[in-house]
């Protein structure tokens, strides 16, 4: 009789346990829950984390993530207003704002991802096709201030943007939000993750870049040649100036000296021109008549004593 008592006790205890287990549920800090009864929603979203109670078996708990979730769509091929063909990859952050509505409209997150894909693809195309490519790429006009500061930025014209990247993404966000809201989704943030030219267009862009670079290279070289010619010209000019000025000075100095010497000589010799003539001529004879052949008579001062003694 004890055994049956124990068995009954165990069975009752287990049944109670099962009932208990099914009437308590845990909502994690990261979750929110919706309770349905026979398919009908019962109480609003339970967002308080912790241990909660419900009617066992009859009521079912559906939990959803309360956190900020990622959405990253497939890239869309879009044509901009200025006919540029690009890939745009948009990514965003969303949250299940109204789990009840979410449950009714989408049921689960995987469906949500594909619904978001569809919505975002449409809106992205809509918005971007109304703008030029440069508006999608740039967000400010600060680039305009930088032109000419870099000698390699030659000839590049920077357009002024009216709208900018951030405004465009905000437009996409605002366009998609209402639709998402109906599904119980709050679209928090949309960003353009990637933009790139289509493969075929890339080739043309590369060609343009190459041509621009070639032009820049040409310009640099010709600038170099220009400056070089300038310096060379300067060199020749300065050289001529220096040498000619030097010549001028040299001639002046020499001339002055020559004049001075002439004056000194003149001053001295003119005191007695005859004596000067006599002395100078005498000095010159030995050198002048060196190694010559002379016929001398005894009628000169030196040789007269050869004949006689006075």
């Amino acid at each position, binding site marked *: 009789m004890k055994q049956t008592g124990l068995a009954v006790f165990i069975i009752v205890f287990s049944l109670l346990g099962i009932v208990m287990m099914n009437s308590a549920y845990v909502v994690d800090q990261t979750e929110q829950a919706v309770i349905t009864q026979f398919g009908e929603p019962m109480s609003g979203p339970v967002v308080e984390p912790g241990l909660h109670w419900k009617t066992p078996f009859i009521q079912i708990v559906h939990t959803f993530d309360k956190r900020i979730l990622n959405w990253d769509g497939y890239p869309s091929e879009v044509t901009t207003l200025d006919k540029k063909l690009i890939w745009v990859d948009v990514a965003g952050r969303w949250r299940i704002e109204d789990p009840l509505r979410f449950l009714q409209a989408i049921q689960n997150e995987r469906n949500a991802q594909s619904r978001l894909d569809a919505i975002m693809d449409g809106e992205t195309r809509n918005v971007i096709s109304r703008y030029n490519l440069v508006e999608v790429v740039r967000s400010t006009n600060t680039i305009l201030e930088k032109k000419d500061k870099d000698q390699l930025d030659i000839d590049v014209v920077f357009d002024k943007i009216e709208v900018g990247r951030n405004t465009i993404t905000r437009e996409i966000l605002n366009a998609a939000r209402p639709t998402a809201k109906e599904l119980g989704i709050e679209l928090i943030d949309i*960003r353009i993750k990637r933009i790139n030219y289509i493969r075929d267009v890339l080739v043309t862009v590369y060609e343009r870049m190459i041509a621009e670079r070639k032009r820049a290279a040409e310009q640099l070289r010709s600038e170099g040649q220009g400056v070089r010619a300038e310096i060379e010209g300067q060199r020749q000019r300065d050289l001529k100036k220096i040498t000619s000025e030097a010549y001028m000075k040299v001639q002046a100095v020499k001339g002055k000296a020559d004049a001075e010497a002439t004056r000194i000589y003149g001053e001295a010799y003119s005191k007695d021109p005859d004596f000067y003539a006599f002395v100078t001529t005498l000095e010159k004879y030995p050198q002048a008549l060196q190694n010559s052949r002379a016929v001398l008579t005894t009628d000169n001062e030196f040789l007269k004593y050869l004949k006689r003694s006075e």
Partner: protein
Amino acid sequence: MDIRYPNEGMPKLSPMRFGPWLLPLILLFLAFAATSSLFYQVDQDEEGVVQRFGKYVRTTTPGLHMKLPFGIEIVTNVPVKHVFNEEFGYRTLQPGVRTIYAGREASPAQGTMRMSREFQGGMDPYLEESLMLTGDLNIAVVEWIVQYLIKDPVQYAFNVRDSQETIRNMSEAVMRLVVGDHTINEVLTKGRVEIQHEAKKMLQDLLDDYNAGIEVRNVILQDVTPPNEVKASFNEVNQALQEKEKMINQARQEYNRVIPRAKGEAEQQILEAEGYAQERTNKAKGDAERFLLAWEEYRKAPLVTKKRLYLEMTAKLYPEIGEKIIIDESQKSLLPLWNLNPKKEGDQS
């Protein structure tokens, strides 16, 4: 005959037999289970986030702690000191080695990275991460790395799901936004520091908007290059720049080689001229002085001085003259018989 039953002789394993042992065993088991789920350890570089029935209750510091057992309280250890690296445009397989993957693993469930159709066509997936448009609508290949750490474990654990993917997506978006406001030349060269700074700030602001509990420590640009297809022409520009500078330097060098030397030579010539001048005037002065002194002496005894001078001259002169023929004064002419061979003994009279 004895019939042996299989279990005969062995003790029967019935619960009833274990009667006295059962309860203590169960209790021991329970105690053991309780103890192991009662204690938990938090490592030095972690903090423990404790949830009771799913609800966040407290954060614990490193060390050994107690919690309510049997799943009533759960602890998640969050590495708050670890610096995470996210690489873009490349992956380091092992330190020092870089290769290109053929594909990329999808992260589980909702966090799937979608590859574009281009990649599915076989393009390098990391090139997709790194190709971007600059503000002047050129294309650059930008590789970078984002370093971050968890600054608030509670926010990190409960506010954003898939933090890593969120950070990656936003990093790409932010980097492209910043690069989209700069020219290609800035991106390649001198705008790098500015770009890193702007990207870091923007990324941090975004993460703070989401209360992600993340602190961005660094955004560092790695290789930033023009696409392979245009690299050659970019190099050409650099070369042209160098050529230009070389041309200018050479011209300047030539100038510096020629002009100072010319100046030096000019100086020298002038000095030489001055030397000449000095010499000339000194000589003149000397000559004049000598003449005047001689003249002074001459004036004192003119005839005698003249004769003396004359004779001194002839003494010097006559040895200089090579061949001398002395004839009488009355001789009127010479026989015109010149020795054609001057070396032989002459026989003229």
